[in-house]
């Protein structure tokens, strides 16, 4: 016996979306990919051309317009890392709705940047939620959730990669069940704290040395890819890539060289900076930085 293969429409733009699409292409027929102009090529590469049609657009209005002009056979849409909030009109175009893979355990860390905020908070666990999109941001009912342990010194990109793997496995497991009518969506558990992440800005990267060392250390890992933690040490502008908390006290924000170690005092405790990247230069360890920038460090 044969059957028509199940089709889905995929919405996504960005490397996380590309990895998700790569995984979906094996299991489903992709009727269409909707992405942004800048990421069109990335998505095409992810499917190796195996998608029915391609649509690049930038705004919510253009998305509405596409779904008005164009009829899709797919009963289900899948949205990952798209950056455009879909309207009810778009959601209703799919009889089974649109499934979003959100990288947190909803209702925790709703919003634009759940992964960075999970690293920033120092929490021990996060996860992935498969959610049926509704017009309101991240409030929709869930198909499934899976918890993931946050390793103690993890950075945002490392955690992201882990969560993508978990997400791909969940999509492969649960989408077929949902398509077959075997899953009932359930509401988010609002007895748990509802927290919101936000879109970070470049300014968030500027290190405020008055904060406790532990918090700054988490920022360094959380902001590792973007916006990056940067500061001025003496006359040198640097991005801090890795640091360790040390129990020392001294004038806040002042760098101190102790043999091959570079320490900066914080609001509470201090940080030993182990990997630094002077702006415009390559990343280096503390010893190399000290050798090259010793003089500049002592300048005001």
């Amino acid at each position: 016996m044969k059957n028509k293969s199940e089709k889905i429409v995929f919405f996504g733009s960005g490397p996380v979306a590309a990895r998700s699409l790569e995984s979906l292409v094996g299991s489903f027929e992709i009727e269409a990919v909707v992405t942004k102009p800048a990421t069109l090529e990335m998505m095409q590469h992810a499917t190796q051309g195996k998608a029915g049609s391609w649509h690049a657009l930038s705004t919510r209005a253009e998305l509405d317009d596409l779904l008005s002009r164009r009829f899709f056979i797919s009963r289900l849409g899948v949205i990952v890392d798209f950056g455009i909030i879909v309207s009810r009109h778009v959601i209703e175009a799919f009889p089974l709705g649109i499934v979003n893979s959100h990288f947190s355990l909803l209702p925790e860390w709703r919003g634009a940047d759940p992964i960075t905020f999970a690293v920033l908070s120092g929490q021990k666990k996060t996860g992935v939620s498969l959610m049926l999109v509704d017009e309101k941001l991240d409030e929709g009912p869930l198909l499934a959730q899976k918890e993931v342990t946050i390793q103690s010194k993890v950075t945002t990109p490392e955690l992201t990669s882990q969560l993508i793997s978990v997400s791909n496995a969940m999509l492969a497991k649960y989408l077929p069940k949902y398509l077959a009518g075997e899953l009932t969506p359930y509401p988010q558990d609002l007895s748990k704290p509802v927290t919101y992440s936000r879109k970070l800005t470049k300014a968030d990267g500027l290190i405020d040395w008055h904060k406790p060392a532990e918090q700054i250390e988490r920022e360094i890992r959380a902001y590792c890819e973007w916006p990056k933690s940067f500061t001025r040490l003496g006359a040198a502008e640097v991005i801090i890539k890795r640091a360790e908390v040390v129990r020392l006290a001294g004038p806040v924000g002042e760098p101190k060289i102790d043999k091959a170690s570079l320490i900066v005092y914080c609001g509470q405790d201090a940080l030993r900076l182990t990997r630094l990247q002077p702006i415009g230069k390559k990343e280096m360890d503390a010893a190399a930085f000290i050798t090259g920038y010793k003089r500049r460090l002592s300048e005001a």
Partner: protein
Amino acid sequence: MHHRNIVSLPSKTLRARSKRVSVVDEAVRETIENMKKATLSWEDSRKHEVGVALAAVQIGELKRIIIVRNNFEDKSDRRFKVFINPEIVKLEGEIVEDFEGCLSIKDIYGKVPRYSKVRVKALDESGKEVRLKAEGFLARVFQHEVDHIKGKVFIDHIKDDPEAFFTLKSDGSLEKLDYEKQVRKNRILW
């Protein structure tokens, strides 16, 4: 012998009855392997379709063996469950119409009425008896495949229904066929 070719209408083999398997021996295991390969090889050549199940007669072997895909909605799951000497012990529930296609009937999908629930008795790959209940699409699959064992194909159920015949278009959607022109006197089908 071409293991990977699917027997299609108008081949008379498809209307022959298959024989009970008395011993699950090497020959039976080889048939099962060939059935799996034939189905997947067919599927890999099709843009919009999944090979959901197969009966041994469809590779020219008149043995009562069927294979059923583990996961109908996930093409990347290429596993099958095997049922030897399958019997539908009971047909239950209501009659539901839904689309079916057959690897052996090119380009045709039919809206076929089937029972919504079935009880099945069979032997598994190791020769052990299994009994199961199936509903919905899986129930449809069992009815379709057990038909093959009796030399029946799905179009036999809808022979006189002008509204029941469809074809798969190049975009993956179904289009109704012209019963008078394309179905009623079609020598390939009947």
